[in-house]
Every structure is written in structure tokens, then in C-alpha cells.
């Protein structure tokens, strides 16, 4: 018999009545569908979910979720979501953002929400391009990327979201890929259960303005180019034919025909130094692209500490009455 308090939902319950208006073939569809599919598995009441987004293609996401939603202004979603979470810490708050929204105009809020360990689930849809403004280079575009705004190639050096998040003291950093649906579901679940600020970077294909940006991670030979890091497990990829071991701080790819699992680096998601090393494999010419939970530790959250401060103040001073406060201090009476 199921627990009467645990709601039983299906994917449909999380679908809003609004027509989805992304370009046909957009990677966002897969992320939306998987989110709608995964949410019912959390056993959480639907009305407790809030989706907050900024501006951009991905930020239309809340309109399509049958949950509380707030489509805000460019880059500011983490700050709006922080207000939601502080005002009601019992809510499950999700931030939907993109590489332009979250890392360029909203870089400041992204960084500060993570460093405060505000219990937000940040889904960063990274397509390495500005989609809604029709194809300018973004802060994650590669050097030399030719767009309408960079006809001679982009001069900007891209940033790596997991490295940025780790530098900002994030307590949960993960990466996944739109086409890796089962993996995406796992990451959503891990993020949901993490009490604290979490970042999931989702590589997402923009088939209009940056098609194939992640093809090496989604095509037939993807296993050669991607490593799924798992806590406590040795670093193997390419269907078990290759592994990674550490040579000092330097990761090197080894052939498993010549090495045993014992030679390999074992992932420890609580190890910050290791997380920094793994995060740096991104865009490395030889090393595979790491996906999975790169880092996860428990630390007190801003929202729970805020509740604790209020509670202890009430305990110490008693619940305040405004009239008492008005009457406090030096007063005198005029007859």
C-alpha cells in the first residue's frame, strides 16, 4: 500500500497547458521532458516546486512546467530564487538559466548564490551560443567562433562553468548532456537530494545557431570522448578500454590492456582538489569530457542558517512587539 501522504504524479501532471515554442529539434525539449518525467519520482507535492528563470531560450522553461514559475529578467534568476527560498525555505526551488544568462549578464548572481550555499538547484543549459538574439558568441563559445558578431572569430576565452562554480565555493557541481537522458535524470535526482546550492551544467545542442557543438559527446564514438565519473569508482571510459591515472597533478589516459583498475584514479566527489583537476579536463585535447557529479559535500545552507538566526533571536529576546520597540529608549511625556 502506498503512503497516502506521498503524492503520485505522472509526467503529465508537470506539463502546463502552454504550447512549447522552442525550435524543432532543440535540445531544450529533451531536458524539459526528462525534468517532467523525473519530478514525479521525488515524492514531493507539486505545489512545492518553484521554477525561476532569467532571459533566453532556456528561460522559457517555467512556462511549460505545471508548477509555480517566475520568468524574470536577464541574468537575475539566482537572486530572485534566493528571495523565494529565504521567504519559504520549505519550497524546492529550481533556477533555469543558460550560458549567456547565467554566466555573462548573471555571472555575479550565479557566483554569489553558489558561495552562499543557498539551497537552489541551478540548471545551466549550455549551448555555447546566444540563441534568442540569433546567434552571437557566448561566454562559453570557443576562441575563434565565427558568428554575426564575430565575423573574424571570437577573441573571448571561454569559461568553464564547473571550474567557476568550484571557485565560487559551490557544494554540488555536476555536468550532463541533453542527449544522455538517463544520466540527466540521475543528475536531477542527485541535485534534488543535495541540501545546498547545486549546479548542473547541461550541454545542450542549439540546432539552429550552433549545431553539433557537442557532437563528439553524443555521436556514435561518444564513449571515446566522454567519461562518466562516479563516486568511489575508478576512472574508466571508452567502454572499459581506457582509463585515467594521475601523474602528480596531471591526468593521463592509459590503455587498459596494459593497466589494471588498481592503477587508476578513483573518483571521490568530496575531494575539492580532485574536483578542480577533473573540471579542468574540459576542452583538453586528449582527456575525455567529464560528466557526472564532480563534487558534492554537505555544508550549512544560507536558508537554514537564516531560520536558525531568527529562531535563536526569538528565543533570546522573545517575539518582538512593535509597540514596545516604539516605546523603547529615551522618551518623555507631554501632558
Amino acid at each position, binding site marked *: 500500500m502506498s503512503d497516502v501522504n506521498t503524492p503520485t504524479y505522472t509526467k503529465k501532471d508537470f506539463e502546463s497547458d502552454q504550447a512549447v515554442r522552442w525550435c524543432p529539434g532543440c535540445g531544450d525539449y529533451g531536458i524539459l521532458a526528462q525534468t517532467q518525467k523525473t519530478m514525479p519520482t521525488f515524492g514531493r*507535492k507539486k505545489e512545492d516546486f518553484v521554477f525561476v528563470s532569467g532571459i533566453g531560450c532556456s528561460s522559457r522553461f517555467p512556462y511549460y512546467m505545471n508548477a509555480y514559475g517566475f520568468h524574470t*529578467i536577464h541574468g537575475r534568476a539566482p537572486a530572485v530564487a534566493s*528571495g523565494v527560498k529565504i*521567504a*519559504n525555505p520549505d519550497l524546492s526551488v529550481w533556477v533555469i538559466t543558460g550560458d549567456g544568462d547565467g554566466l555573462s549578464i548573471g555571472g555575479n548572481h550565479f557566483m554569489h548564490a553558489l558561495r552562499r550555499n543557498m539551497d537552489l538547484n541551478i540548471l545551466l543549459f549550455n549551448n555555447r551560443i546566444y540563441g534568442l538574439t540569433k546567434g552571437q558568441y557566448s561566454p562559453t563559445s570557443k576562441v575563434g567562433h565565427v558568428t554575426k558578431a564575430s565575423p573574424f572569430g571570437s577573441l573571448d576565452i571561454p569559461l568553464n562553468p564547473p571550474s567557476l562554480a568550484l571557485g565560487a565555493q559551490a557544494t554540488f557541481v555536476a555536468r550532463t548532456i541533453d542527449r544522455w537522458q538517463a544520466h540527466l535524470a540521475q543528475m536531477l535526482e542527485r541535485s534534488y537530494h543535495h541540501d545546498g546550492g547545486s549546479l548542473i551544467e547541461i550541454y545542450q545542442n542549439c540546432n539552429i545557431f550552433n549545431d553539433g557543438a557537442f557532437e563528439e559527446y553524443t555521436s556514435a564514438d561518444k564513449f571515446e570522448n566522454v567519461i562518466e565519473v562516479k563516486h568511489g569508482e575508478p576512472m574508466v571510459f571508452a567502454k572499459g578500454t581506457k582509463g585515467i591515472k594521475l601523474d602528480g597533478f596531471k591526468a593521463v589516459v592509459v590503455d587498459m590492456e596494459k593497466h589494471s583498475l588498481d592503477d587508476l584514479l578513483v573518483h571521490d566527489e568530496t575531494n575539492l582538489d580532485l574536483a578542480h583537476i577533473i573540471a579542468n579536463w574540459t576542452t583538453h585535447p586528449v582527456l575525455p569530457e567529464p560528466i557526472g557529479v564532480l563534487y558534492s559535500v554537505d555544508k550549512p545552507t544560507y536558508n537554514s542558517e537564516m531560520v536558525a538566526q531568527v529562531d535563536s533571536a526569538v528565543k*533570546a529576546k522573545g517575539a*518582538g512587539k512593535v509597540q514596545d520597540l516604539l516605546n523603547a529608549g529615551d522618551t518623555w*511625556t507631554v501632558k
Partner: protein
Amino acid sequence: MGKTFKTIDDAVIRFAGDSGDGMQLTGGRFTETTATLGNDLSTLPDFPAEIRAPAGSLAGVSAFQIHFSSKDIHTPGDQPDVLVAMNPAALKAHQKELIPGGTIIINTDSFTKKNLKFADYDTSPVEDGTLDDYFAVIPIEMNKLVTAACEGLDMSPKFVARTKNFFALGVLYYMYDRPLEATEKWLEKKFAGKDVIIDANKRAMHAGYNYADTTELFTTRFKVEKAVLPSGKYRNINGNHATSLGLLAASEKSGLNLFFGGYPITPASDILHTLAAWKHFGVQTFQAEDEIAGIASVLGASFTGNLAVTATSGPGIALKGEAMGLAVMTELPMVIINVQRGGPSTGLPTKTEQSDLVQALYGRNGEAPIPLIAAATPGDCFYAAYEASRIALKYMTPVVLLTDGYLANGSEPWKIPDVDSMESIDVQFVDGLKEGEEFMPYKRDEDTLSRPWAIPGVPGLEHRVGGLEKAENTGHVSYDPDNHQRMVELRQEKVDRIQNDIAKTEVFGEENGDVLILSWGGTYGSCRSAVETLHDQEKSVSHVHVRWISPLPKDLGEIIIKFKNVLIPEINMGQLIKIIRSEYLVDAKGLNQVNGKPISASRIVEKVNEMVG
């Protein structure tokens, strides 16, 4: 002792010294003592933006002015009767504003060659006789005297010298016949556990008092009797504190948690500081990473059902503009406070100005009307903050509250309000739906045009809000041309309907006449003072002060047309005047001053006399 007491109606004292001389603290103590004696009073702190400009420099001069009276007064006074100058720079900066024949009390120990040079004096004005023709100069060797007073204390000469402000305070307490006890008690509390500091300051203060008593320099002492104020319990209050209390009262009366999201900025930061200390009231303060995040968090907290507030100054409002537009579009209640300061850009952070009115009204993209209320006096900040909250919650709208640096830091005696008898604030969240009913987040109340407030956590009301245009009733994204036209009109109409909720305009003076002085915000006091003076001169002048500027009161137009002239004094180049002229098609005249200081009542009197002879 041969000293005579003279009873006077009022006095204006200005303490001026180096930033490190403790002038704000000295003024604050004199104010508290004077308040508890029952005088009416008004203060004007005036300090530099730099925390510590080079010692002795003109840039580093910090001053505090207090006007106290046995009558009902409205301003910190135009010209001081007494100037306390703790160093040459303070004398240089403030002497020109002293009333002719006024008294200057000088700490001659600081009139060293170096300090004189800093203040651009070739010769010491104390010795060269340049002041003597115009003022009564009282030179006192304060450093020497406090050193003698603190003899035997375990304290370095540097720390002993720091007590000289309390010496000056003692002198003024003697001159104006004020008791020392309240200040002694304050010292004991403030420096609890640091007995030597308490002792040294007490000794310095007594030394000042006794010095004034025994020397022949002070021939006359002054008595300022209690003011006749409405009966009740009083306290002294400054604007930022009153604003914070007003918000807290609105939180209690509405039953909503108070959320404050903001970023430190002069002169608004004290609101953040004050609220941060009130955790036992359930107040949650979020010091955000920037101004934008401050208001963004407020949007989130409002969406989630809090009384949500942000406070900043002009440059911060410039940054918050886009989020204010989102608040208009999502029709979420919040209070956005601008403690105005000198602009543009960084401008004069610690000086007052009224130059953000037009910014507050129109400084957003699109048609984005936001109700606007401005506080009139330091104490009125309480009521204005309460009123802003009440209207925001009733009409589901952001409300801008304008105060300014002068109101924020200035103080006055304030009759403590009775919270129970204040107008109630009833908030109704949507708590559910009837069988088969569909939730309409943009269906409006017939009277107020407010939309329902449904907060996350309530089943069945899941809905989305955002910055894209909303379809009427359903709140779905809509690009329909007719719908946009309708929604733009509805948002304006909602603001206009607040007219039904604001008090009838009061006319001070006759209902018609030669001149109507129309004021808003912190110029209230100067205008009221000026009109009182003009009434004494039997001039046909009346005063109207507007608190709500968006919407303007319904009855304002019919009042204005009954006067031959309309004069609008403002600390800007003429902002309200533009609105009044365009709204009522009257040839209003401005009196504009933008020098970082309140407009003096005498300037207004002069202007009126120019206008009507």
C-alpha cells in the same frame, strides 16, 4: 556668579570639527538631552563622504546643527546663533553662515600653524581681529583643559585629547542650562566595562560646564522653555529609523514576514542595519551582491508572500530600474525606498537633494507606472513607510517611497504612535479554488483592480508570472495588440485609483490668495516655516504639501486654481513643477537650489516677497 538668564524662543547651534573630533556624537547627545527637556527641535547632520579625510583639512570638516525651541518648529534653522569650531578648517567652512553678532566658541589649541595652513589662513583669525567686529569670539584652550581634567587617569595623551568634544558639550550645556545626567548615563551604557573612558569623558564634560560657569567669558545663559506640543509620549527620531519602524509596523499589522533585500549605499544603509537587528521580529535581511540582486530577491520574496522591501539611493535606483519594471508587469507588492542624495552619478553621497523624483516616476522602459509617496519630516518617514506598505499590499503594486539624506539623518521629537489604532492592513492570499474553477492570476478586483496573490506551496494555484506581456485574466503570455493596449491602460488605471485611498489635501492658510506654496518631501519644514513667517507679515500665502505624487491627490487641481501664483521650492532644477504644470496647466514658479543643503525658510520668504511685493 553675576550671570543673567535670558529666556529665548529658540536657538540654533552648530558643532563643527574634524571628522575625527566626534561632532556627530556630540550633536547627538545635545539633541537627546534637549529632546527629553521637551523642546521642539530639528537637526541637520552634515558630514563628508570620506570616512577620514586628512586631519585638519577643509574636506574633512564634519558638522551637526540643532535648532531647538519652545515653539513648534519645522527646520534645523537657517543661520546658527552659536558655532563651535574645533579647528581652523571648521571655522573657515562654517563661519560665513553664522548669524551676524553670533557666538563662536573656538578650541584655540588646534589653531596651530599647520592647521591654519590647511585651512588656508595666513594669520590666525582668533588673533588678527578679523572676527571680532562681527561675532562674539570665545577662545578656549580645550586640549589643555581636558588634559588637566583627566590628570591621574591611566590614559594616553592622545585619548585624553579625544574627550575635548565632551568639554565643548559641557560648555553648551552650561550656556543653555541643560542637565548632564542623561549624557552621563549614556556614557555608562555605551562604554560599559571601560571605566577609564567613561570617567575621562565625564570629567571633560564637567570641566567644560564648570569652565563656562567660572570664567567671565559667558556673561549670559539662555533658557529655552518646553515647547507646547500635543499631549502624549515622545521620543526623538531620525528618518531612517522611522522608516524602518514604519515597515516593521506594517509587517506586524499585515501579519506578513518582513523581508529586506538590499545593498549598502549612503545614506540608506542605516535602514539595512536597523532591520538586521530585528531578527526577533522575524525580519529577514539579505545583503545582496549588488543593487540588482537586492531588488531581485525582493521580487522573489514578494512572489512567495512576504512584505518585501528594498532601500537604496539614486545610483541604486538606476540599477534597479529593470527589476522595477518587472514588478510592474508581475504586479507584485513591494516597497522601494530611495533615500535621495546629491547626484548625478556618485554625486554628493552624504548631502541631500530632491533630484530623483522624475527618475522615480519615469525612469523605466515602457509604460511602467509606480505609485510614489514622499516623506515630509523625519518622523513622517514612519507613516510614509507604513502607507507605502499598505497601498502596495492592497493594490498589488510596487510603491516607491522617497526620503532624502536630510530626512534620513535629521531628527525631531516624535509623538509615539499607537500601533493598535493605525489603519489596518488586511492581506488575503488565495487559499484554494472551488470545484471546477480555473485559477486566474490576472483577474482583477473590481474596486482596486488588484490581482489575486497566490503564493507557492498552495495546491491547485500553480501559475507562472514573468516579464512578458500577460493576457488579461489568465496571465498567459500574450502578444495580442488589443490585449497589450488594455493591459497598459489597466496598469495605469490601477495606480490612478489609489486616489480613492489617499487623504484629502490640507491647505495651511486661506483657501485662496496671492501665493500657494506647494511642496513635496523634505522641503516641507522650510516651506511651513516660511509660510508662518509670511502670515506674521500678513501676506496672503498658503501652503499645501503633497505626500502622494503618483497619483496626485484628486482635489489638488481645484485647490491650485484658487491662487494667483503657485511657488514650488525644490532641491533640484524643477521636477515637481514639470508635473504640476503639465497636469494642471498652471504657470507655477520654481525656487530651486541644488547645493546639497535644505532650502532655507528665509529664501522662500524672500522669494514670495519678490513675487507679491
